[in-house]
């Protein structure tokens, strides 16, 4: 019983991080119909930026955890957002009017460029930062106990704050309405006076910012990372986006949490060696029985 609860908690934190990254896949897909395969590497870049900011802050003698996490979040989100903006300008905008395949190949190229650029500039070895927030809360459950580290609580809190803020922006603000309009009918949006190119840029920045949020949280918790760390987590987040229904914002968050929880339960109760196999099997099953995902709308052929 205690192990189920423990894995539920672990899964929830993992899933909220998957959800954050999945947002970038789903929003970009929703607005330009393209899978941004460089998105996982944007996450990887944000992990390096996190480490650099942490190092800088400690160089200036700042040791208090709240200041470190807030400072890291702000700077990392800003710099990673700039990466997202630049990637769109360089790799996707020139190909806006060519076929989908060209943009996809460009995305794969961008992913390779980011990995190699970080590998060359930062080195191929695994890097790490020390754990800064230690301690945990414990709950007794039956004979055993469930332990939640303070860092995991911070992850949950920040991730849900991030998702809540984004949902508010998309649902309630003018910027959000402009994003949704561009997603639903780009041509009509431009006729109404929306600069759709700018909206697309903003969506890339939002996606990268959410990945940066995940990057900061995971790096501060886990510590270790290398230039290849974006690949597997990127594919997992992509799975989460498809699971929830690609193009759907609540779908990405829900998909992330379902994937994280089920993966953790599988790892804890059955086999941690096969947890990736389990995640991707879940994707296959969803694609067979519900190709549009849990919250996605079935594709209707337009006439």
């Amino acid at each position: 019983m205690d192990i189920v609860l423990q894995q539920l908690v672990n899964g929830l934190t993992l899933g909220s991080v998957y959800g954050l990254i999945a947002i970038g896949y789903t929003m970009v897909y929703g607005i330009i119909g393209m899978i941004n395969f460089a998105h996982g590497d944007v996450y990887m870049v944000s992990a390096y930026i996190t480490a650099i900011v942490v190092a800088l802050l400690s160089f200036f003698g700042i040791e208090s955890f709240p200041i470190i996490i807030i400072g890291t979040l702000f700077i990392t989100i800003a710099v990673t957002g700039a990466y997202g903006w630049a990637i769109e300008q360089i790799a996707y905008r020139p190909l806006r009017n060519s076929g989908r395949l060209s943009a996809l190949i460009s995305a794969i190229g961008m992913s390779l460029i980011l990995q190699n650029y970080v590998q060359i500039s930062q080195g191929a070895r695994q890097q790490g930062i020390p754990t800064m927030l230690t301690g945990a809360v414990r709950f007794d459950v039956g004979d055993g106990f469930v332990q939640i580290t303070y860092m995991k609580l911070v992850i949950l809190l920040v991730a849900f704050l991030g998702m809540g803020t984004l949902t508010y922006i998309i649902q309630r603000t003018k910027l959000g309405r402009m994003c949704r309009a561009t997603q639903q009918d780009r041509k009509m949006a431009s006729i109404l006076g929306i600069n759709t190119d700018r909206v697309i840029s903003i969506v890339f920045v939002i996606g990268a910012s959410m990945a940066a949020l995940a990057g900061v949280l995971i790096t501060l918790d886990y510590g270790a990372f290398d230039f290849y760390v974006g690949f597997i987590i990127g594919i997992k987040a992509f799975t989460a986006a498809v699971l929830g229904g690609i193009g759907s914002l609540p779908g990405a968050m829900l998909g992330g949490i379902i994937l994280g929880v089920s993966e953790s339960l599988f790892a804890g109760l059955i086999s941690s060696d096969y947890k990736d196999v389990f995640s991707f099997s879940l994707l296959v099953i969803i694609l067979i029985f519900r190709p549009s995902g849990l919250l996605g709308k079935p594709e209707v052929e337009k006439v």
Partner: protein
Amino acid sequence: MSALMQFKDVDVYYGPIQALKKVSLDVNTGEIVTLIGSNGAGKSTLLMSIFGQPRVSSGEIIYRGEDISQKSAHYVASNGLAQSPEGRRVFPGMTVEENLLMGTIPIGMEHAQEDMQKMFDIFPRLKERRNQRASTMSGGEQQMLAIARALMSRPKLLLLDEPSLGLAPIVVKQIFQVLKEVATSGMTIFLVEQNANHALKLADRGYVMVNGEIRMTGTGDELLVNPDVRDAYLGGH
């Protein structure tokens, strides 16, 4: 009267196919001008070319003294041109209110609440449905929404593409009644229609388009009694 918008020898191509051939027409401030023609004559192409979709390959579209034929759609929209397009194109996943707010992009939210009330007065059906998603509404309601959304930007020139398409005769009547009211308020309207009877009765002037060319022009009344127009568009034999 001065020309608010003027087409000068406009050519438009879809690949090798010429959709508009040396089209010239003008719309003066305060006028209601209609463009009638059958399916595929190029009427919608003409309206969309104002927003550069598709781009004109030669000729000029002069709007308030400036050639806008090569400008971006959002530039055109932010200068007082609003369109209720063919097929209505309301945002299906947005509520009526949100759709209306999309109309305010060029002018900002300053008058949004006041103008929305005005739209609800003109189209009471929209008020009943204000929190409903556009995709769940009937064709007539969506058409009202598309027109209201265009009006929300307080345009100087209102462009309407077949507001009667696919609607029940009673709804068509309602919509033209509303257009009449809007016109009395001084709005300049450029109306593209297949329903020549309604359109010509409403309009001050009209143009007849056949295969991408302007074939005839005259006042609404002249065209209504013209035997060629009657044969081709009004079912008179």
